C-alpha cells in the first residue's frame, strides 16, 4: 500500500493547520479572532492524534478543547468589555522575559524530541485496535488515584466559577442585555 506517502502529506497538512492557527492566535490584533483561530490549532492537533492511531485521544481533544475550552474562552472574550477596540490582544511583556520563556519552551521541546528518538513501535496494521477499552481499563486500575483526583479538581473549578460568577450576578454587573431584548 502506498499509504505512507498519504500519511506524510497528511502530517504536514495537519501540522500546517495547527501552526497557522497558533500563529494567528499569537499575532492577530483582535482578541476574538485569536480565540477563533484556536479552533485550527485544536483540530490540527486532533488530526495528528488520529494519524497516530490514538482514536480516543483525538476525539477527546475535539470534545474537550473545541467543545468545552474554546466555547468557554469565546464566552469569556465576549464577556469582556472593550473587545471592539482590538487593542486588548497580545500586549508584549518585554523582550527579556519573552526570550526566557521561549528558551525554556524550546528546551522542553528539544528534550522531548530527543527522547522520542528511542525504539519506536510502528503501527503497521491497516486497522489498528481501538484504544478505548485499554484506556478505560488503565484508568480504573493503575491510574485510579489520579482519576479520582481529577474529579476533585473539577469540583474546585466549578466552585470557583460559581463563587466568582455569583458575585458578579449579585452586583448585576452582567446587566440584562441578553435575555431581554431592548424594547
Amino acid at each position, binding site marked *: 500500500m502506498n*499509504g505512507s506517502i498519504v*500519511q506524510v502529506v*497528511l502530517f504536514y497538512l495537519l501540522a500546517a493547520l495547527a501552526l497557522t492557527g497558533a500563529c494567528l492566535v499569537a499575532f492577530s490584533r483582535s482578541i476574538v479572532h485569536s480565540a477563533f483561530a484556536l479552533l485550527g490549532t485544536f483540530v490540527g492537533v486532533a488530526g495528528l492524534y*488520529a*494519524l*497516530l*492511531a490514538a*482514536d*480516543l485521544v483525538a476525539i*477527546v481533544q475535539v*470534545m*474537550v478543547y473545541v*467543545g*468545552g*475550552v474554546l*466555547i*468557554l474562552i469565546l*464566552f*469569556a472574550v*465576549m*464577556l469582556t*468589555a472593550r*473587545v*471592539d477596540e482590538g487593542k486588548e490582544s497580545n500586549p508584549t511583556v518585554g523582550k527579556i522575559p519573552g526570550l526566557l520563556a521561549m528558551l525554556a519552551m524550546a528546551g522542553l521541546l528539544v528534550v522531548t524530541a530527543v527522547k522520542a528518538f528511542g525504539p519506536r513501535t510502528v*503501527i503497521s*496494521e*491497516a*486497522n*489498528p485496535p481501538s484504544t*478505548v*477499552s485499554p*484506556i*478505560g*481499563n488503565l*484508568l*480504573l486500575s493503575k491510574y*485510579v488515584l489520579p*482519576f*479520582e483526583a*481529577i*474529579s*476533585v479538581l*473539577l*469540583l474546585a*473549578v*466549578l*466552585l470557583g*466559577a*460559581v463563587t466568582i*460568577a*455569583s458575585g*458578579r*450576578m449579585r452586583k448585576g*454587573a*452582567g*446587566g*440584562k*442585555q*441578553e*435575555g431581554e431584548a431592548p424594547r
Partner: protein
Amino acid sequence: MGYSYAPLLFVVGFALVIPVAFVLLSTRLGPRRPNPVKTEPYESGIVPIPAPERKFQVRFYLVAVSFLLFDVEIVFLFPWAVRFRSLGWFGFGAMLIFLAVLVLGLIYEWRKGALEWR
C-alpha cells in the same frame, strides 16, 4: 493511521469543497449591487441604533463552565462504560466516587442559585 479514517478525509474534503463551489456559483449567478442601506445591520427596517452592545449575562459563562466540567466527566465515563462488564465491582465503586464528587458540584451550583435564570 487506520484505513477506517480514510472516508473521514474524503468527507471533510467534500464538506469544504461543495459549499465553497456552491457559494462561488451563487456569487456568479446572483447580482452584486450593494448599497449603504442594504448593507447595514438588520433592525426591522428602522434606522439601527449605532453599535450593538456586546455584553452578556455572566450566566452564559457559568453554563460553559458547567458544560466543560460535565464534558470532561463524560470523556472519562465513556471508556469506563465500554469496559464496565469486565471491570467488576471495583471499577463500579471507583466510578461511583468520581460521579459523587461531581454530583456534589451540581448540588452546590443548584443551592447557590447558579442554575436559575431570572
